C-alpha cells in the first residue's frame, strides 16, 4: 500500500522525466511525420545540448570562467544557467539546419534502412567526438543554486508531497512552458499548419504548391533545438557523460513516439508523460525492474494498439 505522499512524488518525478521524454519525442515525431525521415542521431542532439549547457554554465557561472576573465565578475544573479537556456536551443537549431541540409536531404529518397544507417553512423561520430574532445568522464549535474537571488537548492515543502527539490519544480515549469509553446506553434500558426498537413500527406502539400522544402529545414531545426533543450534540462538534474545520448535520449524518444503515435505532437506529449510516470513509479518501488517494465510496456503497446495513442499506423512503416 503506497502512501499518498509517495503517489504524489511519483507523479511529480514522472512529470519531470516525462517532460524530457516529451521534448525529445516532439522533435523526433515532427521530423518523422513531416519528412518520413528517421533520425537515429536525435540522441546525439540531446548529448550536444547537455554538453553545450555544461560548457556555457561553467564558463559563465564560475569564478574562473570566460566571462570572469573578460572582466565581468557578476551578472547580478547566477547567470550561467540562464545563459545556457538561451544558447543551447540556438546551437541545437543551427545544428538542425546543417543536418537537414547535409545529412537528411540526400537521403529523403533512399530506403528507410539507409536513413537509419547513416544517422546511426552520425550518432556514433558525435558520441566519439565528445569522448575524444571532452573526455569520457562523468560530470555532475549543473543545477544553479540561486536564480535571481532566490535560493533554489533547498527543497521546499509541498502539500501532499512533502519535501521536493525546488529546482526540479522550476525545471518542470520551464519544460512545460516550452512544450506548451511548441504545441501552440504547431496548432495555431501557418508553420504548424504546414507541419500538420505534411504529417498527413506530404505529397499533397507539395502538389498544392507550398514550399515544403523550406519548411523541412525549419521543422528539422525546431526538432533539433527541442532535443538540445531537453539535453540541457536533463543535464541540470542528472550527471552528464558521453553515453547519455543513446541511453537517456534516443531510445526513450523512440519509445515515446511509439506509445504516443508517430507523427502526433499530442501523442508525443501524452506518451512522454505516460512513460515518465511508469519509470518514476518503478524507480521508487522496484528500481531493478524499471527499465524492463518500460520496454515491455512499449512492446505490449505495439501489439495491442500499434498506431499509438494519437497516431496513424502508416507513418514510419
Amino acid at each position: 500500500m503506497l502512501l499518498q505522499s509517495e503517489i504524489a512524488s511519483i507523479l511529480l518525478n514522472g512529470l519531470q522525466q516525462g517532460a524530457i521524454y516529451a521534448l525529445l519525442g516532439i522533435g523526433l515525431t515532427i521530423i518523422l511525420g513531416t519528412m518520413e525521415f528517421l533520425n537515429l542521431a536525435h540522441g546525439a542532439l540531446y548529448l550536444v545540448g547537455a554538453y553545450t549547457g555544461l560548457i556555457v554554465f561553467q564558463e559563465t557561472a564560475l569564478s574562473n570562467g570566460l566571462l570572469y576573465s573578460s572582466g565581468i565578475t557578476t551578472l547580478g544573479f547566477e547567470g550561467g544557467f540562464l545563459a545556457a537556456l538561451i544558447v543551447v536551443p540556438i546551437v541545437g537549431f543551427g545544428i538542425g539546419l546543417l543536418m537537414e541540409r547535409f545529412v537528411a536531404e540526400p537521403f529523403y529518397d533512399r530506403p528507410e534502412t539507409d536513413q537509419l544507417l547513416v544517422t546511426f553512423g552520425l550518432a556514433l561520430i558525435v558520441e566519439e567526438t565528445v569522448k575524444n574532445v571532452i573526455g569520457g568522464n562523468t560530470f555532475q549535474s549543473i543545477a544553479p543554486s540561486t536564480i535571481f537571488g532566490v535560493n533554489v537548492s533547498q527543497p521546499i515543502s509541498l502539500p501532499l508531497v512533502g519535501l521536493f527539490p525546488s529546482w526540479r519544480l522550476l525545471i518542470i515549469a520551464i519544460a512545460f512552458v516550452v512544450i506548451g509553446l511548441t504545441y501552440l506553434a504547431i496548432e495555431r500558426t501557418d508553420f504548424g499548419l504546414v507541419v500538420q498537413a505534411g504529417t498527413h500527406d506530404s505529397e499533397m502539400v507539395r502538389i498544392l504548391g507550398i514550399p515544403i522544402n523550406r519548411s523541412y529545414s525549419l521543422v528539422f531545426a525546431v526538432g533539433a533545438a527541442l532535443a538540445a533543450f531537453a539535453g540541457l534540462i536533463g543535464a541540470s538534474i542528472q550527471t552528464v557523460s558521453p553515453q547519455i545520448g543513446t541511453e537517456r535520449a534516443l531510445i526513450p524518444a523512440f519509445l515515446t513516439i511509439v506509445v504516443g503515435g508517430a507523427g502526433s505532437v499530442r501523442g508525443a506529449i501524452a506518451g512522454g508523460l505516460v512513460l515518465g510516470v511508469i519509470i518514476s513509479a518503478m524507480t521508487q518501488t522496484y528500481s531493478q525492474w524499471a527499465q524492463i517494465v518500460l520496454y515491455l510496456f512499449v512492446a505490449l503497446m505495439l501489439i495491442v494498439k500499434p498506431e499509438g495513442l494519437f497516431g496513424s499506423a502508416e507513418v514510419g512503416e
Partner: protein
Amino acid sequence: MSGDRSGDTNEAVPDGGTVTEEAAGGSGGSALAGLRERDDFVVIATAAALVVFPFLLIDVLGVVGEVIGISIGGYTGLPSLVLIYGIIVIGFNLLLGYTGLLSFGHAAFFGSAAYSAALFSQVVPSPILMVIAGTIVATLLAWPIGFVSIRRSGVYFAVLTLTFGQALYFWALGPGAWLTGGDNGFSGIEAHGLFVGVIPLDAQLIPVFDSYTVMYAFTSVVMLAALWVGNRIINSPYGLIFEALGENEERVEFVGLNVFRYKLMAFIISAVFAGVGGAMFVIHEQYIHPTTGLYWIQSGDFVIMTVLGGTGSLIGPVFGALVFEYVANVISGVSLPMIGSIGSLWRFVLGAVFVFIVWVFPRGIYGAFADLAAMVNGRGGGDGDKPAAADGGERE
C-alpha cells in the same frame, strides 16, 4: 538493399516477385545455374582463403610491421574472432540484405547463446555441446520475439527488436544477476577441448606458425558450415522468397504466399547464426558481460559489419567483420608518428567510414570491389551488368 546480385541481371529471371517453384528448382534459366556455380565457388574459395588468412593476418603483417616499425600484426586470437563475427553477420545479412528487415536486437540472441553456453560449460565443458546448447536457447528466444516483432515493419520492427533486446539486457544486469553474474560478468568459462578434452583449444596445429590454433581450425569448420548453409538457403526456393520479400513484400503476398511465415523463418534463421556465433564467442573469450553480450551497441556492431562488408552477397559481410575487428583490436593499438596513439579514436574513424560507405557505396566494400572488377574485365562481358550494379539496389 537487396536483390542486386549480379546473377539476376543476366537475362532469365525477370524479377524477384515472379519466382515460381519450377524456376527456382533450377530446371530452367541459365542465370540460376550460373548463380549456383558462382556461389559454390564462393564456399570453396573461402575454404582456401581460411588456410591463408591467419598467416597473412599474423605472420606476414607481423613481419611488415617490424619493418616499418608499427605493430600491425594481429594477435593469435584475432582470426578466430573475425570468423566468429563472420558467422553472425552471414546470418544477419540473410535478414537485412535478403529479406530487407533491419533488426537492432540481435544482441539478444548473441548474448543469450553466450550465457547459455557459459552456464552449460559448468555442467559439461564440451565446446560442441556448448554451441548446440547456446544455439537452442537463441532459437527458442527468437521465436516469440520474432512472432511479435514481425507483425510490424520498418521503424517499428527495428524499435520492437531493440526493446526486447534492451529488456533482456536490463534483466541480465539486474533481476537476472543470480544467473548471469550481473555487472560482474560471467567468467571462469572453460571449454575442455575437442574430442572429450583430448585436444585443447589453444594448442598449435603447426609448431612453427603462431597463427594456426585448434580454436581457429574449429571456428573455420563452423564458419564454413555456416557459409554452406547460408549458400544452400539463398539458392533454394525458400531463399528466393526471402529475396523477393526484400524487393517487394506486397508482390509476394499477391502471389499467395504467407509473408508472415517466411519473415518469421528468416528472423529465426538469422538468430540461429547469431546463437552459434554467441556460443563460439564465449568459448573464445571465456568471459561474457551484459555490455559485450546483450547491449544494443552490440546489435549496432552487427549492423555496421554487415553494411560495411556489403549486403548484396553472401560472403560480403564477412569482409565487414574483418575490417571491424581488425580496426577494433589492432589499429586501435597502433601509435602513428604524427598523430600519436589511435586508442579510442577507432570508433570515431569507424563511424566516419561507415557513414561514407552508406552514402557512396550502399553495397559495401564487397560491392565496391565487385563493381571495380566488373569495370576492369567488363567491356565485352556483362552488358546489362554494370548499370544495375552501379545503381546500388532498388529504390522505392
